[in-house]
């Protein structure tokens, strides 16, 4: 499908939207043909998520027209868009943790029999849906809150499919998926395509965009830069159009040997419910990458070091002194900062302002360290340093894009001058431009003498950023790898095809 189909399924013309005086979208045109995968790429805050929410009825546009299946549409709410046949898989999960898979999948359009919810049918239809996605191990009556992130993503997809959608929007669908699950998603996308369903595919991972899409639209600062057939696009072109920069400057230089200092944080024989026999040295000035599969104990390690779920055995020393990290407060006071994996749930206070979010940790942990005004000034400077793009410091953080939210979280910790920084998936759900900004910040912090531990599921990021890597498996450190290792080395350790490696 190299060119425009005769009748587009979806036609957007001149879509515009402002929030609190900030123009987020400006005159955007976009077509999706039946059976086409149309990828939308763009930098942080380029307006992709806003555009998707407009198509799915979450926001009402200020200007422009939406034509769906040949008819002009005005969506007053998500319900209208669903009725018309537009489904969306949101970037952030939209699931009820207390309810079952089936109840989530059919929320808002539960099957009825004689006026009542037909639970049996709801369960069997959910099972069928899960089977079409290739997920057979997930019980339809499982409580969603007890599922892992990847399984929740599957539920999210099933939920969108349950609508018999003719157009499906996927906003960063692979952000939480492991590699083999991404494969499943690919298959699923192709199957939907064969059924004549149009797909709008938003992703930061260019590999996916090239693998899946028929056409690509680039957004920048709320405007459409270009729409082109995927066959005519190259990764370098796309990145240049998105951010105006070449792909080669992707990762900052590693630390020189003389930059790496003494051991700052050491763990010997650390263990708890999820971890065993953790030995670890983290040096000043280095970025230590932590690899491994989902559930291998990567996040559990960061959470143990930050005192969320502390080590119950073993010894932790900071700068040679034994330290007990019993709570996040204790860890913060010991000079540790933690940028969490789940930004929406654990990173930000959605309804508080940018400034309040940035001040959160300093206020909580060091209430009287310095003058209030001085602290605010300092945090404002930090927000400027990390280049947060917001309408103002008093804007509620939930209106910011994921990348900007992450920068605010970073500023929050920088305000404490941490010696040790723990990053858990620092660039998840963040686009290329903001990603390299975060990478640069991480490297600058290391260069300034901080000890950095960085968890990442994205192998290029892990390999590109780390001075050295530990790969985890089943709650243990499976092995250590030097800089310059290959993706295969990491995967081999992570899945256990090589035994305890001597590195």
């Amino acid at each position, binding site marked *: 499908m190299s060119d425009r189909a005769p009748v587009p399924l979806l036609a957007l013309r001149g879509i515009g939207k402002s929030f609190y005086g900030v123009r987020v979208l400006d005159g955007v045109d976009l077509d999706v043909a039946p059976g086409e995968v149309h990828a939308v790429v763009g930098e942080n805050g380029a307006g992709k998520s806003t555009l998707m929410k407009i198509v*799915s009825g*979450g926001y009402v546009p200020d200007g422009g027209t939406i034509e769906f299946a040949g008819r002009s549409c005005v969506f007053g*709410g*998500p*319900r209208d868009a*669903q009725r018309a046949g537009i489904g*969306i898989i*949101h970037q952030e999960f*939209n*699931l*009820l*943790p*207390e*309810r*079952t898979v089936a*109840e989530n999948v059919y*929320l*808002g*359009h*539960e099957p*009825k029999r004689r*006026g*009542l*919810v037909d*639970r049996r049918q709801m369960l069997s239809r959910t099972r069928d849906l899960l089977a079409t996605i290739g997920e057979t*191990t997930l*019980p339809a*009556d*499982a*409580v969603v*809150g*007890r*599922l*892992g992130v990847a399984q929740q993503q599957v539920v999210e997809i099933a*939920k969108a499919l349950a609508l018999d959608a003719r157009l499906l929007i996927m906003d960063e669908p692979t952000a939480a998926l492991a590699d083999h699950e991404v494969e499943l998603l690919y298959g699923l996308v192709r199957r939907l395509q064969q059924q004549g369903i149009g797909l709008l595919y938003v992703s930061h991972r260019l590999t996916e965009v090239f693998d899946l899409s028929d056409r690509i639209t680039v957004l920048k600062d709320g405007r459409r830069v270009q729409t082109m057939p995927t066959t005519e696009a190259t990764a370098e072109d796309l990145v240049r159009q998105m951010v105006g920069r070449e792909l080669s400057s992707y990762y900052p230089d590693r630390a020189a040997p003389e930059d790496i200092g003494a051991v700052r944080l050491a763990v010997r024989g650390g263990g708890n419910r999820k971890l065993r026999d953790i030995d670890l040295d983290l040096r000043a000035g280095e970025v230590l990458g932590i690899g491994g599969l989902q559930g291998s104990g990567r996040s559990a390690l960061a959470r143990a070091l930050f005192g969320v*779920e502390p080590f119950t055995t073993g010894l932790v020393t900071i700068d040679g002194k034994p330290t007990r990290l019993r709570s996040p407060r204790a860890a913060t006071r010991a000079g540790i900062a933690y940028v969490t994996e789940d930004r929406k749930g654990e990173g930000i206070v959605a309804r508080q302002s940018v400034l309040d979010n940035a001040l959160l940790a300093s206020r909580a942990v060091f209430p009287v360290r310095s003058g209030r005004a001085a602290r605010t000034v300092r945090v404002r400077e930090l927000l400027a340093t990390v280049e947060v793009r917001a309408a103002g410091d008093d804007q509620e953080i939930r209106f910011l894009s994921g990348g900007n939210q992450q920068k605010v979280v970073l500023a929050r910790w920088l305000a404490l001058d941490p010696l040790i920084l723990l990053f858990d998936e620092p660039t998840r759900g963040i686009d290329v431009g903001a990603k390299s900004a975060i990478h640069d910040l991480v490297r600058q912090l290391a260069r300034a003498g901080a000890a950095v531990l960085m968890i990442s599921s994205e192998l290029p990021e892990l390999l590109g950023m780390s001075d050295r890597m530990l790969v985890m498996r089943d709650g243990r450190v499976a092995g250590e790898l030097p800089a310059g290792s290959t993706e295969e080395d990491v995967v081999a350790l992570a899945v256990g095809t090589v035994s305890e490696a001597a590195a």
Partner: protein
Amino acid sequence: MSLLSLRAARRPVPGVFVALAITLAVGWLIVMIDGGQLFNQSTTVSLLHVAAGLGLVAVGQTLVILGGSLDLSVAYVISLSTLVAAETMNGSDGALLPAIGLALTVSAAVGLLNGLLVTRLRINAFIATLGVGLLLKGYLDNGYDGPAGTTSPTLVQTLGYQRIGPVPLSFLLLVAVTAACWFALARTRFGHHLVAVGGDPEVARLSGVRNDRVLVVAHMLCSLCAGLTGIYLASRLGSGAPRVGTEGLYDLESIAAVVIGGTALAGGRGGVVGTLGGVLLLASIDAIFNQLEVDAFFKQVIRGAIIIAAVAVYARRAMRKAAV
């Protein structure tokens, strides 16, 4: 994570029934040592009557709390409903049905007002329903000094005092209302949507649920339940009583029963069956203390301690769940 652990403990039997059993057993023992009898005919009947009155409000309260809202106006709705019912009946059986209808209509209207304030004007439910309650209080204080109207004799004889064995008709009404609400929550779209709205309003909205409509209906059902309580109380008292709702502390007690029954105060988790357990627990404690002739103030202290303990237990459980 095995499949078993995914399924296990889903919607467990609320722990409140365990607490209820223990309370009754311990209470029975203590009362016996004291030389009394906890489960004789008259104590059981009065226990179930207390439970019926509180239970009808509390079941309604469960619905709004599940939806993430709250209703502090129920005590005044109860008082108003006793008066509307008793004054319309005016001692005759002829006006029985119209009087019940009118009392319920007035109650539902208050619920509609509550619901619209909470959804359309986006006023915090705590403030909105407190405001409506005070409005009703003003009307009641202004218009009534004491009991007014006379309840129809038939109603007094049936709903008020008729029993099947030791079980009053009113308690059977409570069981029926609880069953109806349980069914509504489990088997109707309204129920599913209500729990969703309470669990996460944004998720519900993005899934196509009409949050406002669901919450308004929940508020109307809550007020209807309060109105029903009022009719029941009128049948017990024989007249309308302008302060029976507040003096019975039906607003706070109903919320306490809901919370003891395991429904999350923030909404999205829980159910009416647990509330029934909470109501029975509170009523049992009442009965035990009455038997022991415990000081009324001390009784309040114990009830407070029980509420705090219940919430602490649920909070711990939630924490453990989060850690899994």
